[in-house]
């Protein structure tokens, strides 16, 4: 590190690049695993077996899939707006990846330990909306534009419950910095914000119903934020073919796909850091430390990702009006009540 710093500009650029490239390595590995897990879980829920012929129990299938995507022809329809069409997947991925910089993977690794933490994540994620609109519009295809419109409307609406739910966790922990939020919850499972945080017992007991409700609402809203079932209207394959990425193929499609999977992890990571103790061990100081921290963090996130997959293969898709009803008439009022309650309890 110090030797590199002596190199001046290039050294600092190199450090910055390496430091910021760590999450992408993780995202790629994670995407491979999740790709496989998603198909396997889907199959087993439906009493099937899924891939069995590529490697042991089909473990090589994700690699084969990626190889296939890599060598597929990158088609652009003649009526599409070529410039924006090409740009869109990068904007989407940029939004997702940018948000990864504020995720505390472990006590020693966080891309950028900024004070704004979650606020930054919420803000940068809005790039995804613009990217999706861009892709949908540039495709010049009815399905794409419908998908993009729905996606934007959905994400903008669900940003409100998400932000409010995040606000509740922030009120309890008193910081926007996810590293601080995580440290606040150190000391075991009972100190997690979802169980009231490390507050005096009476306050804690009063808080638990509110935090539990908030946690569930945040999870529901985050499902909608990443366009997953039961909120997968933007991609609704039975109505819109494939939504905003109908026209995409090859690497550009892979980019959207990767962004979607990365987004799943991202929202899980935010939920974990805010409510489930981030990288802290559930057993207090037992099995804690930077490496175990990484293990706990990723483990908890993958658990939530599993929950997302499980829900995807259980529930049907909502209708557009039901989607809006859920956001504006159920989640938001409930969160207002929670904010009020939590504020009151914290002041007491």
């Amino acid at each position, binding site marked *: 590190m110090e030797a590199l710093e002596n190199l*001046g*500009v290039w050294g*600092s*650029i190199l450090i*910055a690049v390496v430091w910021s490239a760590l999450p992408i390595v993780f995202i790629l590995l994670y995407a491979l695993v999740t790709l496989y897990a998603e198909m396997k879980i889907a199959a087993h829920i439906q009493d099937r077996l899924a891939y069995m012929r590529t490697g042991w129990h089909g473990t090589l299938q994700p690699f084969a899939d990626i190889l296939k995507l890599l060598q597929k022809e990158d088609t652009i329809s003649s009526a599409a*707006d070529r*410039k*924006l069409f090409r*740009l869109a997947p990068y*904007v989407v991925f940029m939004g997702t990846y940018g948000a990864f910089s504020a995720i505390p993977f472990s006590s020693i690794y966080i891309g950028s330990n*900024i*004070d*704004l933490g979650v*606020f*930054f994540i*919420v*803000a*940068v*994620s*809005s*790039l995804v*909306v*613009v990217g999706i*609109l*861009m892709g949908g*519009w540039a495709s010049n295809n009815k399905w794409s*534009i419908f998908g993009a*419109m729905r996606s*934007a409307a959905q994400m*903008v609406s669900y*940003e409100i419950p998400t932000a409010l739910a995040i606000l509740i966790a922030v009120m309890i922990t008193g910081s*926007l910095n996810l590293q601080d939020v995580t440290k606040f919850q150190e000391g075991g499972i009972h100190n997690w914000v979802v169980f009231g945080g490390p507050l005096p017992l009476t306050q804690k007991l009063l808080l638990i119903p509110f935090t539990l409700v908030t946690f569930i609402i945040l999870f529901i809203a985050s499902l909608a934020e990443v366009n997953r079932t039961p909120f997968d209207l933007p991609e609704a394959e039975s109505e819109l073919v494939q939504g905003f990425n109908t026209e995409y193929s090859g690497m550009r499609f892979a980019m959207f796909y990767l962004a979607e999977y990365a987004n799943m992890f991202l929202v899980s990571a935010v939920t974990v850091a805010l409510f489930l103790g981030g990288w802290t061990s559930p057993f207090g100081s037992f099995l804690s430390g930077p490496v175990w921290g990484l293990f706990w963090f990723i483990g908890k996130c993958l658990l939530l990702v599993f929950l997302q997959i499980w829900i995807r293969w259980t529930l049907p898709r909502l209708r557009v009006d039901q989607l809006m009803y859920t956001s504006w008439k159920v989640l938001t009022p409930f969160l207002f009540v929670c904010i009020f309650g939590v504020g009151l309890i914290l002041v007491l």
Partner: protein
Amino acid sequence: MDLYIIVFYLFALITLASAAIVVISKNIVYSAFALLFTFFGVAGLYVLLMADFIAVTQLLIYVGGILVLLLFGVMLTTKVIRVDMRTATVRTFPAVVIVAALAGTLIGIFWSTDWPQSPASDGFERTIPQIGEMLLTSYLLPFEIASVVLLVALIGAAMIARRERKAL
């Protein structure tokens, strides 16, 4: 020349180039999308000015809210109703006068102001607690008034939308 300077010029370049596209482009959708990079670049510049809260707020409100609204408007009009929206140059003379006056004022301010030159600090100061405290103490009234105005706008929008549906 250190990383700070490089990043500054990078963001400045992004901002200026995309702002130029916004103005020059004949295709209004390009203008709208170029605005994304302008906002992004400006947010980057705010960060370099140690105003991280402003930067992130800029992203959240302008990119997440206003830009999406703009895009909806542009996309709905050009693609769905098939109106060919193009930007064109009209009334060149008054425009030149106004722009010249504006530019003159700005440049005048730019030259006459005594810009504080602080050395690039090592780390970020924690601005959020200060901002929060300020908002809820010395600037409580403007803060509350702003929120009431927004609430009124929200209710007004809902009212207009509802009435239109009944009329149909």
